[in-house]
């Protein structure tokens, strides 16, 4: 059954966290990034983020891989491709939503060091990407 947008989704048994597919990040808006992967893949990215424990308090981070490659997951308002997903539990009630993070333009869209170190250890990114992401510099992820 296809997932619905703007509805609280129960993802058990994959994760006990609930997920809300925000339609605001699925259509063009001048100040918001937009998913370009399917809703199924957005949810898979979220589940992977949670089960991999790429979590910092009420924020978690995700990527979408095909083999060793990181795929584009969305675009920013300037239509530039984005590869890192940010998920937030805004109210602290275990209902999460997410959007493609623009680490180069928004200072709060940068994963912390522990998540980035874990990504390097898993071969998702290389060491030089870590500092570039933390310093908001574009790089070929």
């Amino acid at each position: 059954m296809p997932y619905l947008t703007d509805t609280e989704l129960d993802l058990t048994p994959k994760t006990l966290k609930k997920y809300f597919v925000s339609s605001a990040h699925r259509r063009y808006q001048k100040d918001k990034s937009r998913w370009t992967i399917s809703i199924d893949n957005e949810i898979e990215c979220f589940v992977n983020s949670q089960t991999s424990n790429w979590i910092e308090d009420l924020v978690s981070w995700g990527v979408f891989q095909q083999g060793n490659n990181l795929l584009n997951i969305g675009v920013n308002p300037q239509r530039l491709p984005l590869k890192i997903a940010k998920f937030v539990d805004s109210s602290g009630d275990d209902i999460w939503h997410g959007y493609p993070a623009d680490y180069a333009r928004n200072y709060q869209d940068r994963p912390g060091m522990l998540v980035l170190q874990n990504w390097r250890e898993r071969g998702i990114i290389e060491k030089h990407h870590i500092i570039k992401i933390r310093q908001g510099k574009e790089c070929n992820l």
Partner: protein
Amino acid sequence: MQPVKITIYGDYIDCQIYRGRLYLWTFDGKLKVYKWHDLVNSLPMSDRDILTLKFCFLDGNYLYKTELVELFEDEDFKPILLNKFSKAANQRYDLTAQQADKFLFGEQDTPNNLLPTDTEIYSSKLYYITENGLFSSNAHRDSKKYPVSSKPIKLWDCNLLSIKANKYPQLALSGGSEGLYELNMSTEFTNKWNKEEPVQISDKHSSFANYTFWSIYNSSLIDKSYMALFNLIKCPETAPENLYDIYRSKFNREYKELINETKIFEISRNENYLSWGVDDKIYRATDSGFEIVKFNNNPSKDKGEKLFSPIQKLNLHSWKGKVIGGGSSYFGTIVECENALVVMLSNGESTSIEGPITRWRIYPRSLNYQNHLHVIKDDRIEIFSFNQDYFLNQDEKLLGTEYKQKKEWKGGKTN
């Protein structure tokens, strides 16, 4: 002239050099502090190379001394010294992590157990940023267990992108979309900017910043770069009683205005290229090369001097990927591209350091390491020493910061 290089293998994420100690942050969360002089003196060298390596890695300021200028202009002597540097450049100085560890002063866990996004050391204090904020710790301590204090002080909780300190000390703080801030801890300047908390200078995007004398050049990878111009005005209430007081008197550092790069580079079109500034020069990397503007922080109107004077446009072959950073020291200007570092030397030559590059650092405000370029790669740190700048006329060179002799106090009491 090729640089001289020391390579230390290991998995590093950051580095600093300060007062005879090399600081290396390892990827597994350690901070290793090395006795730099001992490490350099251990390198395989003949007696004839000892002096050269000292100039290269331990005392980069020595050859800038005024007394030596005449010597470097001597047609017989100059080639002898150049030859010594060339000979050292042909040597390999490689150390494994285990070999380097013989010269450890101390090793400790990284303060806060979190790898830093950026670091600076000034006045025996380590400043560093993580996603949890801006911190400072006492550095250059006698303790071998904790060469850097393990009890850092949190100065601010903003999740910054980069920091840059100068000697006063002042810290320029780049907050990305949060803008440019400054933490002014100077005791020499008194004004409204001296606060215990950082003060926002501009809400415009800031990727990294550097001091152009007492002003700040803010570089943005997203938006237009700009200079935050400050003037230095002597405090009337601290009228000196003697010459010593003149030397020590306090100044007001007054904010004047933000000057957009479009005005500095006289750009008419809506171009977006990265520019950066350090002290007397501002650089802009375009698709076709390089533009340089001379910054005069104290122009004389009577002499018709301007704040900004274009001095050169260099046409170059294309950069190695998008330009994402830049810096300048006396020996030249560094252009950080996605896939390499390009070092534009002060004598007009250039050299490329192939990537991927995790981090690079220069130390133009240090006392002894102005000729260093440290480059961290995936499995090593390469410590380069560039030595062509001693032989150049500092007033006339196009690339690299102009070296000016430090003013020495002559007469009166000194502490």
